[in-house]
């Protein structure tokens, strides 16, 4: 009897599991600037680009926006946001150790005090998207928005407030205080090995 139940459950279970990979993206914001839980991925972000003195993160998500997912590996951090008006991958954020901003237009930045320089790729290169580069010591964050200021001014204004930066030094201190270990990279003592 027990086996019959197991077998009866096998078909829908397999069907459900086959469908599971379609939901491979995480549905809750794991790179939130304010979230200090163990489930936050900013620690991993810091490990991926150890030279970066700042870590890109998401400020409070406004209505209509949702966290899409992330992809983090050595030297590369990528996460994206979905919008109910623009669609999936409306704002795509990538961090690498460095980037080439030659020929781009420098823009005034609110985060200038934190040592961030903001650049915008010429509109001629992409007519329907906006590409910004945030350059700082040891890192470069590229934000690709699937819209332009002219085409969607209100969305553009909202998106401008979504991205934040978390100082790496705070994470270095947290790891040291909580575990006594070193978060290898900028602002921490060199790691053995």
């Amino acid at each position, binding site marked *: 009897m027990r086996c019959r139940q197991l077998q009866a459950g096998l078909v829908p279970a*397999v069907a459900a599991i086959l469908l599971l990979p379609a939901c491979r993206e995480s549905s809750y914001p*794991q790179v939130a600037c304010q979230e200090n839980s163990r*489930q936050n991925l900013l620690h991993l972000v810091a490990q991926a680009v150890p030279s970066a003195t700042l870590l890109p993160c998401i400020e409070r998500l406004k209505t209509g926006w949702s966290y899409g997912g992330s992809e983090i590996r050595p030297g590369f951090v990528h996460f994206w946001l979905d919008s109910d008006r623009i669609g999936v991958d409306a704002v795509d954020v990538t961090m690498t150790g460095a980037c080439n901003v030659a020929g781009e237009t420098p823009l005034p930045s609110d985060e200038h005090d934190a040592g961030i320089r903001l650049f915008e790729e010429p509109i001629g290169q992409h007519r329907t998207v906006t590409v910004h580069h945030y350059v700082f010591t040891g890192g470069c964050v590229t934000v690709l928005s699937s819209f332009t200021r002219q085409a969607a001014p209100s969305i553009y204004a909202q998106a401008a407030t979504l991205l934040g930066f978390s100082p790496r030094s705070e994470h270095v201190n947290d790891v040291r205080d909580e575990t006594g270990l070193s*978060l290898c990279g900028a602002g921490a003592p060199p790691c053995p090995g």
Partner: protein
Amino acid sequence: MDGESETSKFAPVAERGVSGKRRRPSGEAPPLPRKLGVSGKLWVGFAAISFAIAVLVVAYASLGHRFDRWNSLFLQRLIALRAGWLNHAMVQVDAVLSSRWTVGVLRLGTMVALVLLRRWRHLLVFLASVVIVEALAYQLSIFVASPRPDGVRIIGSWEGPSFPSPPVAALAVTLVGIVYSLLPPGRPRSRGKWVVGGILLLFAFARLYEAVDHPTDILSGLILGVGIPVVAFRVFTPNDVFPVTYQRGRAAHLDVSGRRGEAIRKAVREQLGLTILEVKPVGLDGSGGSTPLRIRVAARNEDPERFIFAKLYAKSHVRADRSYKFGRAILYGALEDEAPFQSVRRFVEYEDYTLLLLHYLGLPTPTPYGFVEITPEREYMIVMEFFDGAMEIGGAVIDDEVIDEGLLLVRRLWDAGLAHRDIKPANLMVRDGKLLLIDVFFVQVRPSPWRQAVDLANMMLVLALRTDAQRVYRHALKFFSDQEIGEAFAATRGVASPTQLRAALKRDSRDLLSEFRGLAPDRSPVAIQRWSVRRLVLGLSVLVVSGLVVLLVIGNWRVVV
């Protein structure tokens, strides 16, 4: 342990029934209890502990920090071994074993092999294990969001959170799946397990050496990647029901040695009061629906030592019957009663009933001895008289008396409102010039006229294989009219004859079917195609479900390979 001492251990004297039979008391295990196995239970336990730790680590940050410290302490000691050449070697080992290409090629190869071997159940369990492990590892890694090790320099490549280690889980489920679906139990599987253990150990060491994973990441990856397929294969493809074997023989046949052999001895002793001396599979080639056995039993009271015949039935036979009837319903419509049996018990109860019925009618069929329970609702064995000294009709001398007996047998079946439905050489025996009929599982009461007619034609064909059409036809006229024989050969085409009979007819240089049709009065063929709404709906449903399965597999191909 001998049989007597085992019985006495479980059964006080007062509990014994007559004739040495014994009723199994409530709570006592059946002869062959279902077992997950010690290691299976261990893996389930490990998985539960692992999941509990993951939840606690997320809920209590301080516990997580403690784990981080222990993990890093271990890694700091391990990286003291680092040396240039070893670094290179370990990075290469990790790169090869964690590559999606490696895992993809292994999985694809396994799937192709399982398809070629037509081991569909193993294929389904393999695929389900892979998808479950991949999905669980991914979801758990997102849930716990564990960073990579701190306090040590990472020299390897990684992606995403570290707990549980997805590459370790992916490789483990693949290799364990290969071991359980392609290697036969016993020495080959045992060796396979050691090889897989060695590979996984090397892989785990490489990843720890590189400091890309914590020890707990590796451990949890192994628990998922090994535990899930081990439990899945043991539950859904137990060795004794779905054996992985490369020997010739039909998949329906069960292994009657080892634990099952002991269980058969115990069941027959306790439920029939007979002591088994020897169990030997017989006639496997002619039997696809069960495992036929010749059993030698010890003398008891007035009965001398003798052989009895038994057929072992398991759930796989019920499934095979269901698939067979489902296929027939699509290919031919409701040609006969295509309602499948719902359980092994019903299956064996039905054969017991037909044996009793034919025995009651005085037909030359085996005397029924009842059936025994091996595993409740999963395995039963029906026991009957063994026609010792009888020879299959294909190898026996066929004289006029045997021909008459064969034809009279069909006449008596007709008169009793029955059809045997499986008249073929393997089911007709000759002993001392007398014809005997075995395998009455397919017997139907009040069958369709078509089926009764087919029984006659099949009997005449079997008899003619060893004689000739004219002679058999002449004898048939003693029991049947011209019209009845004409109807029989108008009804008998293709699927109407059992596979073994069709093969024998094909091997024969004569065209016996045409010869009989030439002798009998002309009659237009009896149609065997039956069209109905049910048949159309079934056919369409199969097409739609097949399409959906193909789409699902294509859609999720990236996850599997």
